[in-house]
């Protein structure tokens, strides 16, 4: 046992030296997350705002002006030059100058005052489907509120009140950041781990290593520990950045959060080691690792595509994606403040995956050349 620990330490120490000497690993582990967070957090926001809007106001009353102003006030729409007639909307859409046109018919103000239903119209450019759908949703709320404020009668016919819990402003960055955390950990951990064994095969040092008393568990464990450490620093960085840059709340316990992260990290390192043990060449190992870790996390964890929308068989496959459980746990702890009891199931699933993947890597790792 003592020899086991010492030999493992020797391998781990050597691996730390490799990491320090090859600064690319450090850049990859600590630089890439920052870039990805920026990209996803700022660049790829699903919140639609600043939609260019033109108004064709045929009513020209205070009420009709108020309607146009209400749309712009929230920042969701930006007012472009008015249109003289609704017939100009077609040309405005085609030129791409505007994505939405508000048409207020003559007599709008009068009808609103009388409390009868009004016929204001919002035309949306449907060629950009995502923007159109979200713009319509935003506008519907605003328009309803605008008319409600003016109409006592309309308020009588209102439906059930909808309140969004945990993310009342429906900010997509919350989902985005938690998803990106999963994606980054999956990508970097499996990438770094996939390189480490394959590199020894390629350089020929594996043969030398096999001629020493160092065992396969010692080799894999010795390689795992430094990368788990690096991954943990990375987790710390990503979660801190996420909460500072994008105001993502951390409502649950930090211990639960890092526990879940560590388990997921081990599963991803296990994936990388497995790829590395099988492939024996760095290039193949990296591609293999990406295929096993990054792709499923991106597609099947529920980050980009809701699992509820998937066909049954795809949902079944998603059960085998560790990222799914981590994402659930992460969102639960960050946004809902879930405690250990609630996320225990996800943690157990992650633990099972880590143990299974690491064992598989050890099992597949032959200490012979042929």
């Amino acid at each position, binding site marked *: 046992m003592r020899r086991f620990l010492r030999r493992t330490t020797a391998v781990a120490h*050597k691996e730390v030296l490799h990491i320090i000497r090859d600064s690319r690993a450090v850049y990859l582990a600590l630089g890439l997350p920052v870039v990805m967070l920026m990209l996803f957090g700022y660049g790829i926001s699903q919140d639609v705002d600043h939609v260019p809007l033109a108004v064709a106001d045929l009513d020209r009353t205070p009420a009709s002006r108020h309607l146009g102003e209400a749309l712009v006030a929230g920042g969701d729409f930006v007012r472009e030059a008015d249109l003289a007639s609704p017939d100009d909307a077609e040309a405005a859409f085609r030129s791409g100058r505007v994505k939405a046109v508000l048409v207020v018919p003559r007599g709008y103000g009068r009808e609103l005052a009388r409390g009868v239903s009004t016929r204001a119209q919002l035309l949306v450019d449907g060629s950009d489907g995502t923007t159109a759908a979200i713009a319509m949703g935003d506008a519907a709320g605003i328009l309803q509120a605008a008319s409600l404020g003016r109409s006592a009668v309309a308020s009588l016919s209102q439906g059930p009140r909808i309140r969004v819990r945990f993310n009342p402003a429906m900010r997509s960055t919350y989902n985005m950041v938690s998803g990106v955390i999963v994606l980054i950990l999956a990508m970097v951990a499996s990438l770094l781990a996939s390189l480490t064994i394959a590199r020894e095969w390629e350089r020929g040092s594996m*043969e030398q290593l096999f*001629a020493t008393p160092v065992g396969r568990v010692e080799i894999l464990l010795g390689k795992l520990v430094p990368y788990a450490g690096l991954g943990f620093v990375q987790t710390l960085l990503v979660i801190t950045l996420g909460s500072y840059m994008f105001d993502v709340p951390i409502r649950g316990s930090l211990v639960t959060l890092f526990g879940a992260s560590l388990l997921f990290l081990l599963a991803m390192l296990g994936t990388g080691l497995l790829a590395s043990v099988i492939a024996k060449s760095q290039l193949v190992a990296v591609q293999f690792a990406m295929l096993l870790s990054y792709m499923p996390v991106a597609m099947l964890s529920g980050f980009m595509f809701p699992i509820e929308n998937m066909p049954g068989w795809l949902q079944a496959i998603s059960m085998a994606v560790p990222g799914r459980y981590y994402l659930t746990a992460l969102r639960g702890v960050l946004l809902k403040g879930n405690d250990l009891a609630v996320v225990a199931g996800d943690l157990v699933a992650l633990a099972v995956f880590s143990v299974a993947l690491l064992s598989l890597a050890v099992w597949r790792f032959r200490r*012979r050349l042929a």
Partner: protein
Amino acid sequence: MSEDFSVRVKNLTKRFGDFVAVNGVSFEVGKGEIFGYLGANGAGKSTTIRMLCGLLSVSSGEAEVAGVDVVHRANAVRHAIGYMSQKFSLYLDLTVAENLEFFGGAYDLFGRAFRARRDAVMRDLELDALSSELTGSLPGGLRQRLALACALLHAPPVVFLDEPTAGVDPAARRKFWRVIRRLADGGTTIVVTTHYMDEAEYCDRVGLMVTGRLAALDTPECLKRTFVPGRMYEIQGASVIELEQVAKDLSLLDIEPFGAALHVRIAKDGPNVESLKRELTGRGVRVTNVSDAEVTLEDVFLTVVGGAQKPKTAPREAKVS
């Protein structure tokens, strides 16, 4: 089994599918002996050594290294052997001291015991001044010495060196061999492969591998007597074609180019230097000089491998004469 032998191999065979890389090889290496393993690339030298180090499984046959049955207990042999693989395989991004420290750890050497061995090995191999150098910045000769140092840290009774001097300059090679000789004098058994024929002369005994078979095995002297009998002369000024025309008359057994001259082998009872020169000029072959020449292991190799096959040619095309 006998205590006098460090390595005992009996009918050792390795198959890769249909290809037989090592075919029924048997030999024994005594304690403190330098055993040279010669052969063309792909003749099965490295495969044999890898089996003896427990790196490759054995297809059939027996092998015992330092008293350990390698066929059944491959893992148990690792403490007893030092191995230098053909491909330089230390970590180039680590310093000399760090490489030594890692391999020390890999061989269960720590603390004072490690430091004592490290200092001894570094002194023996004259690496003292280099401990903080990055391994990647060292020239080939020094890298090989470091690799040897790493393989010797745990003071193994048997050391396997697979082409340790490939790509190393002659001065560094000579230095390397001095270290090997010193080790053997200290009782360490050395099994070394090479295809430098001059290096094989340093070995106590030499085994010649040809396409997976051990074609010859003896001391360098006996090999020369057995496979290259007769006298060797060096002839200058004549061409191969001219000599071939008179080969039958003068019973020349072999004509091989050697530098700018030719090496010609003649049966033991053949003419001496003076009469050979006379005979040649008498037959109209112009020669500027004829002198005695040493039989080298290269001559042995060429005879064993057969005909004009050079040591570096592909072994599967070579025919055993």
